[in-house]
């Protein structure tokens, strides 16, 4: 068949012109690496956010005294925990091409309910109080999902209404202006405690080993089916890099970071790290390897096509809102753990906006259908790093970066920048 009009002529002798050339040809290591770096397509993914993370580290590392230190590294990770989790929660809704403005107060309401049950005079066991928070999160997801998917109210309006509603409920439970202290060890430990150094190394083995095994298995399966597979040497290189990077992180965190003269050593990977890793790996698996995940992307990409393919759009939307509520509950627990208490402000103010910002900065598209679960993690780190770095920067050129004003302005501009990249890359892929 005459194909000349269909395809622009491809240049370079290295480009094979056969049919399905990319699918059928087994690449060498050099070519594989080349393809890895210069991936085709318009989806930039997390590349801008990763670049931002590196340049921020350099920028703050050079200008703020204590930015690169053992203590601040652990601090940064724990400060980012709730943000990363809430950004992951919101990502499920963003993937649909919807928005959830109430996710911040969903997180707040979940943890307020848990704290309320734990505190005297109720003194409910944590084995009931914590699941109760998750039930609240899931219920909010069901209600929001029904109103959006079944009744057909725009998510923007539904969640705006619930933003007010859940805030009111939090106010009533926490009694205007009052705070409920959290004394439960389990919740306190979540963000504030670290694992023993040995467990940090075990986590490293689990992560690098897990990646190696799953990548090798996938390659083996493809080879058995007669499809070209990722080179074993490339898999080993990737796993090695992961082990090296994660190992360096573990090594730094396993050093004693307590102030001089402290009575007990402060060392180890924060407990929040394995919790976040476990949640992200599980949800990533659901999104990438199951039909449910495939259908989530389909609904976000083209609702009508999904409906005609026999996918229950209502169920997919509802399940995403439920997932958002459940993960928001974990984010709420992280917030409560960080503050050792909950108040009517928990989950309020700029909580949600920063989470959405983190997801978008990480590379999740606001237009739906594009984004992986690692993106909100990277984006969350960027936003947390801006906050943390500016706080340590102090006053530069007569601007006090520790004050809220300049910090909000910087964060706003970074978010705007990320949204611009999203819109431009979408325009390029459509046009």
């Amino acid at each position, binding site marked *: 068949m005459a194909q000349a009009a269909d395809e622009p002529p491809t240049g370079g002798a290295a480009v094979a012109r056969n049919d399905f050339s990319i699918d059928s040809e087994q690449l060498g290591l050099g070519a594989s690496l080349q393809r890895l770096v210069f991936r085709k397509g318009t989806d930039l993914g997390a590349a801008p956010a990763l670049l931002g993370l590196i340049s921020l580290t350099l920028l703050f590392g050079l200008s703020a005294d204590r930015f690169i230190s053992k203590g601040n590294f652990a601090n940064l990770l724990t400060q980012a925990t709730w943000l990363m989790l809430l950004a992951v929660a919101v990502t499920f809704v963003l993937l649909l091409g919807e928005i959830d403005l109430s996710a911040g107060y969903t997180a707040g309401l979940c943890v307020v309910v848990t704290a309320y049950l734990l505190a005297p005079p109720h003194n409910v066991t944590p084995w009931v109080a914590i699941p109760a928070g998750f039930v609240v999160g899931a219920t909010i997801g069901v209600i929001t999902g029904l109103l959006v998917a079944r009744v057909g109210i725009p998510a923007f309006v539904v969640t705006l209404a619930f933003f007010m509603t859940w805030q009111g409920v939090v106010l009533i439970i926490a009694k205007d202006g009052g705070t409920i202290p959290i004394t439960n060890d389990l919740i306190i430990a979540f963000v504030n405690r670290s694992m023993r150094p040995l467990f940090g190394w075990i986590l490293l083995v689990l992560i690098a080993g897990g990646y190696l095994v799953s990548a090798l298995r996938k390659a083996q399966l493809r080879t058995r089916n007669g499809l070209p597979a990722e080179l074993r040497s490339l898999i080993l290189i990737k796993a090695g890099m992961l082990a090296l990077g994660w190992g360096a992180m573990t090594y730094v965190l396993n050093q004693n970071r307590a102030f001089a003269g402290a009575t007990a050593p402060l060392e180890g990977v924060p407990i929040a790290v394995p919790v976040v890793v476990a949640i992200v790996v599980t949800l990533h698996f659901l999104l990438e390897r199951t039909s449910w995940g*495939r259908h989530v992307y*389909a609904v976000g990409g083209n609702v009508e096509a999904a409906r005609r393919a026999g996918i229950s759009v209502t169920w997919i939307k509802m399940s995403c809102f439920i997932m958002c509520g459940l993960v928001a509950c974990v984010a709420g627990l992280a917030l409560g753990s960080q503050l050792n208490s909950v108040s009517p402000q928990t989950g309020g103010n700029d909580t949600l906006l920063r989470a959405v910002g983190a997801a978008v900065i990480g590379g999740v598209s606001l237009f739906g259908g594009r984004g992986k679960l690692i993106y909100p993690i990277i984006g969350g780190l960027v936003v947390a790093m801006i906050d943390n770095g500016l706080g340590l920067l102090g006053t530069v050129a007569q601007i006090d970066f520790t004050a809220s004003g300049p910090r909000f302005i910087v964060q706003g501009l970074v978010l705007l920048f990320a949204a611009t990249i999203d819109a431009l890359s979408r325009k390029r892929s459509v046009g």
Partner: protein
Amino acid sequence: MSPAKDDAPILAIRGANKSFGAIHVLHDVDFAVYPGQVTALVGDNGAGKSTLVKCISGVYSFDGADVEFAGNPVTISGPRDAAHLGIEVVYQDLALCDNLDIVQNMFLGRERRTGATLDESSMEKLARNTLADLSVRTVKSVRQSVASLSGGQRQTVAIAKAVLWDSKVVLLDEPTAALGVAQTRNVLDLVRKMADQGLGVVIISHNMNDVFEVADRIVALYLGRVAAEVRTTESTRAQVVELITSGRSGDLGLARADQVQI
């Protein structure tokens, strides 16, 4: 076409009626699809082509009709029924997800699984084989996202998606409307190829060049009635255009308007 090629129709619809409120869209329509043949469904805007296709694909249901599939009476009461019989539709807007790749689109809603996880290798292999069977030689990788494909390639993927499911009847709604010359050529070749493989193919088109190039028989609809069913080899473009615009042409077609009882 030799008459010997007219086997029993794979899909036969007799006396189909469909109204939307007071508007009677289909009047006693008889329509048949033969295996190994391309049937063109032509007619002016509002003649009822799309309604007929949507009734066949189960999006709408007939108010009354005798539907036979492979000789057995059937009722189609939803898209799943139609898909179950082996009737696939390629819509004009193609219904593809831009953010998914070719394999993911072709298996959308009917993914192959091993246990709870997706069986990517077997889907990829099958998608590639189906495209190869259709002599599609344009795509470099079936793992390319659909957003990166040209209009003709997207049409090809949509058609391959319809063929993948061991289908018996494929209906194409205006498959060449948005395409350039070379791409139209490819799609028409593809339509012919599907019929040669034994499928019953229905193509809706406004383009007489396409119709006369690829179709074996032409069914002309006029204001919700079948004006005539003709063989491509035994008719001329002028005749078909007349059937479309006035419902009759010489001896062919509906009775004169002044003789019709309304």
